[in-house]
């Protein structure tokens, strides 16, 4: 894991906020750049807030991308909301629009009735009005078809996570048994293949803030006085550096191993009730590649065993599975991105395959600096387009 525990982002709002000045920039930029997104142009609604009145250039728009371009002609700082029909649930908002300034609220809305509100002074209910989104017939994230695809994707991914956790629980037990029994050769042989199940679903484990440090903290990540537990603590005992005194009594071994098993079981129990959203799959895939880029390509993750390439492969597998689950959606929304991701996943795998051996992978310490650079280049080549996945899926 990384020292900073990250959680799966779960943005409930699909909103884009733009400053007026940036907007003039953006207009220019959009004109000089190519818009190959393939989607229809957004509907722009001009909103003028005079402080005493909130006027909209239209009170109806077709479903899809809608831009509320809010101009503050009053004397107080203002904000603008799009609320659900109940007038309470926030669909999207822009805040802190100073006098004389404009900001844009960009969102994707499904057909239905809504409430708009300008709130000068940014307190109270503000000036409200009704707003209607009609059905444009466009296939997008808000349509039934897309919802079905999302449901299929999240189910597929949940099944994968459940399966990996099952393997992890069973593997960890075997590993712990070997270690407790003093069979270090067996424990060393099981270490990397078992951890691979963990690494393939690491963002899920990281979403449980307390479990990840207990199971996967590296020695360098400890703070003063913090107790070290988990995989890497045992890793150091199995691959002890020179002049290191192992923690080696049967009691100590049992304590470490039992804790590992118990925490892994805890993870399995919590995963049972986890549900996923499409954006979490996209962000999870991106985070797995980040893990590779910052921890595995650098050889920092498996500091004592140097089995980083096992983790590398597992991270890539986990990212690929998340992407595969989302791929039907990506194919509809952005075929080019799907083609790029297919290609880059394949070429990263080709690169990794170069280091496969009969029982796994070469050790990180066997790689030359040139080979590390090639791996890193491939990770960057995939990581950059993969960072676009979430937005393509949710917008």
């Amino acid at each position, binding site marked *: 894991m990384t020292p900073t525990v990250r959680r799966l982002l779960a943005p409930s709002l699909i909103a884009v906020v733009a400053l007026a000045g940036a907007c003039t*920039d953006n207009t220019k930029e959009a004109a000089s750049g190519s818009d190959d997104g393939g989607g229809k142009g957004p509907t722009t609604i001009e909103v003028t807030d005079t402080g005493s009145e909130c006027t909209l250039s239209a009170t109806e728009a077709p479903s899809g991308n809608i831009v509320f371009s809010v101009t503050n002609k009053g004397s107080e700082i203002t904000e603008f909301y799009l609320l659900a029909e109940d007038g309470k649930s926030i669909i999207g908002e822009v805040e802190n629009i100073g006098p004389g300034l404009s900001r844009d609220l960009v969102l994707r809305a499904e057909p239905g009735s809504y409430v708009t509100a300008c709130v000068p002074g940014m307190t109270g209910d503000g000036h409200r009005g009704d707003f209607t989104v009609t059905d444009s017939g466009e296939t997008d994230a808000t349509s039934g078809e897309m919802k079905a695809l999302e449901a299929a994707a999240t189910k597929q991914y949940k099944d994968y996570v459940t399966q990996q956790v099952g393997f992890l629980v069973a593997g960890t037990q075997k590993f712990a048994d070997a270690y407790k029994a003093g069979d270090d050769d067996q424990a060393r042989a099981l270490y990397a293949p078992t951890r691979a199940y963990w690494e393939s679903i690491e963002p899920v484990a990281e979403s449980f803030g307390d479990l990840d440090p207990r199971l996967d903290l590296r020695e360098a990540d400890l703070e003063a006085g913090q107790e070290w537990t988990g995989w890497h603590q045992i890793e150091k005992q199995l691959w002890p550096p020179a002049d290191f005194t192992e923690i080696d009594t049967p009691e100590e071994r049992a304590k470490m191993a039992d804790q590992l098993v118990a925490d892994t079981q805890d993870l399995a129990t919590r995963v049972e009730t986890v549900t996923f959203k499409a954006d979490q799959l996209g962000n999870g895939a991106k985070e797995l590649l980040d893990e590779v880029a910052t921890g595995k390509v650098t050889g920092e993750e498996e500091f004592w065993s140097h089995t980083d390439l096992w983790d590398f492969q597992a991270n890539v597998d986990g990212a690929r599975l998340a992407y595969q689950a989302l791929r039907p959606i990506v194919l509809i929304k952005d075929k080019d991105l799907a083609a790029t991701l297919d290609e880059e996943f394949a070429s990263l795998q080709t690169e990794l395959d170069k280091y496969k051996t009969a029982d796994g992978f070469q050790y990180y310490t066997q790689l030359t600096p040139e080979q590390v650079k090639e791996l890193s280049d491939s990770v960057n080549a995939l990581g950059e387009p993969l960072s676009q996945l979430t937005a393509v899926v949710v917008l």
Partner: protein
Amino acid sequence: MDDDTTGETVERDGSTADLATASGDGAGADEPDRSGVSRRWLLGAGAVGAAAVGVAAGATIASASEPDSDPSEGAAAAAVPFRGEHQAGIVTPAQDRLHFAAFDVITDDREKLVELLQKWSAAAERMTEGHSAGTTGAMNGPLDAPPADTGEAYGLPPSQLTITIGFGPTLFTKDGQDRFGLAERRPEALIDLPHFPADRLDPARSGGDLCVQACAHDPQVAVHAVRNLARIGFGVVSVRWSQLGFGRTSSTSTTQDTPRNLFGFKDGTANLKAEEPDLLDEFIWVGKDDDPAAAWMAGGSYLVSRRISMHIETWDRTSMREQEMIFGRDKGEGAPLSGGTEFTEPDFDAEGPDGEPKIALMSHVRLAHPDDNDGVQILRRGYNFTDGTDGLGRLDAGLFFIAFVRDPRTQYVPMQTKLSRDDLLMEYLVHTGSGLFAVPPGVTGPGRWVGQDLFA
């Protein structure tokens, strides 16, 4: 806040205070003074509210201002046109800061390379105008996507950013392979530079299939340019090495003062200047008949880069007499030791009372002077650099030498061979990095991109 910062302007020795005015007479002189209002906001047309935002943005700019030339004001903040007969960043009055990057192409796919050059050209044009790299900018893209632009130059003026793109020998042929079907278009002049005496080149700081020279008056703007181009290039190119430079060591316009290198000397007084079009045609721009097989280079130039490390500490222990003798100029004014002022032509025949030449036979000024090089001249555009200190506490510093020439075989190679062998200065120098790049002509028509004729 803007005023406060300006009020703290430091005039080190009187020569720096003129910078903004001086460069204002150069290429960007037709830009009106924006009096502290960021160009960024004004360029996007006179939108309602732009002026108000501009005032707010002024505060950001002030915090990034230079002590001796506030880049938020006047010509130093202005934009240099990306398009033109020649690429910008060659005879453009040398800006204060550099970020230079060399790239390896990591794909075999010619189409991807072409696409990259198209994307780079579009992004470079946007950034030199003071806009962000991507079409949705730094701040106003979808919340669930990473921003198209990295954002650190948001609100900063164009700062005379220039982005100059070049092609290294290995783009054409590498290990005997014609990688992209370009081998027969490799210019004869794009040689593999020979080993020069005393070279100690680090392969990790040398060569490259492509290069990007980003110069600006604000280092953040230059770094932003290279960072975003590298990001656009992931999967197609990989940065091989890069170098930051913090002080220009050459003037490329008669409106500019000659700056000092890290030895404390004015260097490059006799540089070619933008105001000498005939000499530029003779020595800098590739002619249309220079190389029929590489007609795509007409109007281009060749960029030589050399990372020259200086033995700073031993130099500092050298007597003033010896320092001046080694350069052949006086340290204060930069005048040749034969007398006069900085721009007085050196008199290489002048002898002192002892009968010895006033300008030593192996002095830098004599060996580098056109008189000693068959009249050949070059355009120098180098930068001082320091990459911190080495493990022994010595400055890891020197000169990142950049020169533009029409033909490195007749201009750079003979000159450097002689300097490396004979120049007294070499005792204090070691060349640690090297590159030679073919810089194609500029782009003119709409939709055209850098290097298009090479791939036509």
